[in-house]
């Protein structure tokens, strides 16, 4: 092999490896660009008004998104209360009680549900919850989002419970504890961090979902009282304001985008930090 050819190959090697570095750099840069752009455009619009006032009539400047922020909060809370217990208890079943057959069926169903596009979940929630009750409502939106939280919660609960060391289990049983007591007082607390992480990640995922809310929570100019009224939500407001021609609405859309993204990122960072600080459980 001639020296020249070797030099060429070395050059190619260094060049290509540098290019991969560029790829990685560009990918990460996008995240900072998004954040930066949102801060730049939305930062100045985040003021007291934004969080406390209701939207103004079309074309008039001012107003805020108080109802959308509260609405999103309500729907996310209710969605968690719907989706998390099902996923959590179902995960316990898979990890502790089930036989092989049932376990595969449940896992398969959860994976299927996980892959459903969010707009299709919206269709389902509309036919199941909106039409029969004849109104758009917060609980219809919560139902749609709650369903999306189930698969992540279920699979993660199962995995983290299974990874709890046998010693802990056998120790508890040796002390005379029944199975459910072992689960409740020993195993679940041991897997607590991982499960919390999964729930937070599931929450972060549905917090940004817009499509399922279009046909379920619909929208509301005012604060929605209780759970059975149409509800304004942050993602839907961003969408509505962004495609409108009004500059003031665009300004508010940026602010809302910043708030939403901030919320989602904080939950994600929190979740991943909890996980990394906990006992060594395998990443799912």
């Amino acid at each position, binding site marked *: 092999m001639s020296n020249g050819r070797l030099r060429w190959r070395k050059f190619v090697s260094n060049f290509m490896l540098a290019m991969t570095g560029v790829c990685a750099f560009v990918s990460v840069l996008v995240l900072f660009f998004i954040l930066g752009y949102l801060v730049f455009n939305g930062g100045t619009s985040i003021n007291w008004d934004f969080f406390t006032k209701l939207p103004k009539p079309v074309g008039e400047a001012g107003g805020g998104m108080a109802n959308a922020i509260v609405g999103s909060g309500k729907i996310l809370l*209710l969605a968690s209360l719907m989706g998390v217990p099902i996923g959590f208890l179902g995960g316990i079943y898979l990890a502790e009680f089930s036989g092989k057959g049932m376990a595969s069926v449940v896992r398969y169903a959860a994976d299927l549900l996980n892959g459903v596009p969010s707009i299709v979940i919206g269709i389902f929630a509309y036919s199941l919850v909106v039409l029969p009750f004849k109104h758009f409502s917060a609980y219809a939106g919560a139902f749609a989002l709650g369903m999306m939280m189930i698969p992540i919660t279920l699979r993660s609960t199962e995995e983290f419970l299974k990874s709890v060391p046998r010693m802990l289990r056998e120790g508890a049983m040796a002390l005379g504890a029944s199975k459910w007591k072992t689960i409740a007082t020993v195993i679940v607390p041991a897997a607590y961090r991982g499960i919390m992480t999964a729930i937070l990640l599931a929450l972060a995922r549905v917090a940004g979902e817009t499509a399922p809310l279009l046909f379920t929570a619909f929208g509301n100019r005012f604060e929605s009282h209780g759970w059975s009224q149409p509800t304004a939500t942050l993602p839907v407001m961003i969408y509505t304001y962004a495609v409108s*021609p009004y500059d003031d609405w665009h300004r508010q859309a940026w602010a809302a985008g910043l708030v939403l993204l901030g919320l989602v990122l904080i939950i994600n960072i929190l979740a991943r930090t909890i996980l990394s600080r906990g006992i060594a459980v395998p990443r799912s």
Partner: protein
Amino acid sequence: MKRFAGLAIGVLALCAIVLADNALLINGAGATFPYPIYSKWFDVYHTKNPNFQFNYQSVGSGAGIKQVTEGTVDFGATDGPMNDEQLKAFQDKHNGTGILHFPTVLGADVPTYNIPGVTSALNFTPEALAGIFLGKVTKWNDPAIAGPNKGVSLPAEDIIVVHRSDGSGTTYIWTDYLSKVSDEWKTKVGKGTSINWPTGIGGKGNEGVTGSVKNTPNTIGYVELIYAVQNNIPYGTVKNSAGNFVKADLASVTAAAAGAAKEMPDDFRVSITNPPGKTAYPISSFTWLLIPQKFQDAGKRDAVKNFLMWMLADGQSSVEALSYAKLPKEVVEKEKKAINNIQ
């Protein structure tokens, strides 16, 4: 874990109690065409009557008709009146009771455009408009457009048509007009709230079309007058049946309704596009609230009836500020009587 659950339940209960309120919420959805005036009205009405909240979602006439038929909203709104088939579908779903149309304001569809360097109002003939929207007139400097606009330098750029992507009464008005002035349009495309557009991109709601036109050069779209005015985008004149190029404004829209006012049918469904009249703007229309004839909830029924009465009296005084024309007197009187039909 337990503490978290306790906290969650506490917050839930708090929400339900604290936010539970005496205000009655009445939900409506539909046309984006009158959205600026409706949102103003409902805001003012709520200030005067804090016990009533009218929540109106601007989602397009098509969705308004659909959702009021399904019963998921209390009232609808549309600029394309429900056809017989849709009326029957409503009756079938509501044990034989019907739905009533109540005109609220008069408005106009204007051809709005964004041509770099052109700020004046272009003159459009019906042939030009039909040609553009059929995709046959493709460049801005086409003779069909340039002809009536001597003195305006039009670029040799492709025309980008912007239409509605959602089911729209504004579309209904526009296509109703085009069907009347162009046989080719009538046979090839027809009129409706959702049609098979020969060309162009879709925007959601009047808001979306206005946004697209405002942000994209060489576009033309059709929007309700106030959207073009509020967003400072130019809109053109249209040649009416008497041969005059008329710009949409309060006077020309009112003139368009003059004939219909005298011969308004009992169900208020009428088309006033391409009317006779020297000063009439040819693409004008009423817009309607769709009110079910029978309400289950007496509170909602009374709230709606009160609102309608208010709308026909005080409400009409704020429409002109937003470039909508008031309802003709005859129509107002007829509607006041028709409100009694709501049970």
